[in-house]
C-alpha cells in the first residue's frame, strides 16, 4: 500500500466521521467542528489520491488551498449564526421546527 492511498483511506474515514457528526450531534459547536473534519477528509483524499509514483501533483494542492478558504468562510458564517442563536435563545442547540 502506497503512502498516498493510505492518506486517501484516512480521508474517507475522516469524511464519514464528519458527516456522522454533522447529522447526529445536537451541540452546534461540535457540529461545526464535525463539518471541518468532513472537509479535511475530502482534502486528504484529493491530495492523497493524486500522487502518482510518489511525485506530488501541484494542481490538487492548489484546489485544496481554495477549498480551505471556502471552509474557513463557511465556518465563520456558521460560528456567527451560532453566536446569534445563543444570544437570542441562550442555547447552543437548534430548536424543534415549530410549524412541522
Amino acid at each position, binding site marked *: 500500500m502506497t503512502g498516498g492511498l493510505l492518506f*486517501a483511506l484516512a480521508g474517507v474515514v475522516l469524511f464519514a466521521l464528519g*458527516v456522522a457528526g454533522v447529522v447526529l450531534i445536537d451541540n452546534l459547536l461540535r457540529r461545526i467542528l464535525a463539518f471541518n473534519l*468532513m472537509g479535511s477528509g475530502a482534502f486528504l483524499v*484529493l491530495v492523497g489520491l*493524486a500522487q502518482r509514483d510518489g511525485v506530488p501533483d501541484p494542481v490538487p494542492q492548489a484546489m485544496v488551498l*481554495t477549498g480551505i478558504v471556502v471552509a474557513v468562510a463557511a465556518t465563520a*458564517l456558521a460560528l456567527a449564526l451560532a453566536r*446569534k442563536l445563543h444570544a437570542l435563545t441562550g442555547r447552543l442547540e437548534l430548536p424543534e421546527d415549530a410549524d412541522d
Partner: protein
Amino acid sequence: MIDPLVWLILLPLCWATLAFVLGPGRGAWTAIGGLAAQLWLAFVLADRVGAGGKALHAVGGWGAPLGIDLAADGLSTAMLLLTQCVALPLAIYARSYFKADDPAGTWFWPLTGLLIAGLNALFVSADLFNIYVTLELAGLAAVALVAAGGGAHQVAAALRYLFATLVGSGAYLLGVALIYGAYGTVSIATLLPLVTTDAPRLVWIAGILMVAGLMLKTALFPFHFWLPPAHGGAPAPVSALLSALVVKASFYLILRLWLGPLQALLPVFAWGMALLGAAAIFWGSWRAIRAVKLKRLVAYSTVAQLGYLFLIFPLLTCPGALQAGVMQAFAHGLAKAGMFAAAGVLIKATGQDSVAGLAGAVERLPVTLLAFGLSGVTLMGLPPSSGFLAKWQIIEAALAQGYWIIAVVALAGGLLAAVYLFRVLRQAFLLAPTPQPAAVVPRALEWGAFALAAASVLLGLRGVELMRLVGVT
C-alpha cells in the same frame, strides 16, 4: 468588445460591493441598474449562442488546464436568462418591500449581488472544481440571506439550511476528489471521453456521491426537510430568490453531469430519481394542502414542483425531455417568484401569515390576488401558461416511450396543486367577518408580483424560442 460571459459574473460582484458601501437606499438603485444591464447581457449571449453555438472564454488568457475556462451552451444560457429575468423584477419589488430601518433590507442588496454572481458563475463553469467553489459561494450567500432578518426562527432555519448545504457540497467535493484521483482532470469536456471508455468502480462511487450531495441541495424528497423553514421563514423577496433560483442551480448541475461526464454511469438510477420525484410531488402537495401558514403552503408547493424536474430523467433519451425539464424550471421559477411576492404583499396587508386570515383580501388587493391566481395557473399547468407547456412535453415524451405511469403522476400533481391553490383563493374571496381598515401597500409591490406571474403565463406563447436555445450544444 464586451464579453457577456465575463460581465455576467463581474457586474453583480461590482454592484454588491457598491451596495455594501452605499447602504440600502442608493444601493438598491445600483442593484437595479446592474441587474437591468445583466438582463441585457443575457439576451446578447442568448442571441450569440442561438446563432453561433457554444460560447467560450479563457479567463485572463490562460486556457485550461492551467487557467479557468468559462463556457455557455444552450442549457447554461437558458439558466442565465432565467436568473436575470427573475432577479430584476424581484429587485424592484424588494426596494419597496423593506422599510428603511429593516436590518434584513440593509444586508439584502450586497448578499443578493453575491448570490447572483455565484449562480451566474456556476452556470458558465466548465470544470468540476470551479463548480464546487461557485456552489459554495451561492450557498453561503443564500444562508446569509435567510438569516438576515435576525429573528431566532430565521437564524435557526439558516443554520439548518447551512448544515444541509455544507454536507451536500462536501459530498460533491469528495466525488470531485475521487474523479481527479482516477483521471487527473476535472474539465467536463476532457472527462467525457475518458469516462465513456473506462470507468473504474471508484468513478461510480464518485458519481453517486456527487448526485446525492446535489439532491440534498435541490431539496428532493426525502432531503427536503430544510427547505420549508428556510423558504417559509425568510422575508418574501428572499424566499422568492431561493425558491425560484437557488434550488434550480443544483438541479442544473445534476442535469449537466447526467448529460455530460457521467452519462455512461448514471442512467441506471433514472427510475430511482423519477420515483423520488413522484414521492416529492405527492408529499409536498399533501403538506401544502394541510399547511396553516400561507408561506409554508407556498414553500411545500416548491417541494412538490421540484419533483416534476426529476420526472424527466427516465425520458432523457427522448429529444423533447430536456426541453421539458428546462421549461418546468422556467415555469416554476417565474411563477414561484410571483407567488412568494404576492404572498409577501398579502402578509404585509393583513398583518399575519395564516391562510385563514386572508378573508376579504380580494376587495382590498385585487391585483395581488390576480398575481397569485396567475402563478397558480402556471403551477397547475393550465393552458396557455409555460407550466402547461412543460407538463404537456413531459406527458408527450412519457407516452412516446410507453411510460404512461409518468404521465399519470404529472396529471395527478396538477390536480393536487389545484386543491391547495384553490384553498388560498377560496379563503381570499370570502367576506371578512369584520371589515378591517386596509393597510396601504406600495403599488410597486403589487405590480412586481403581477409582472412575474404574468411572465410565467405569457412565456407559454414564446416557448418555442426557448426550446430551440436549449437544444444548442
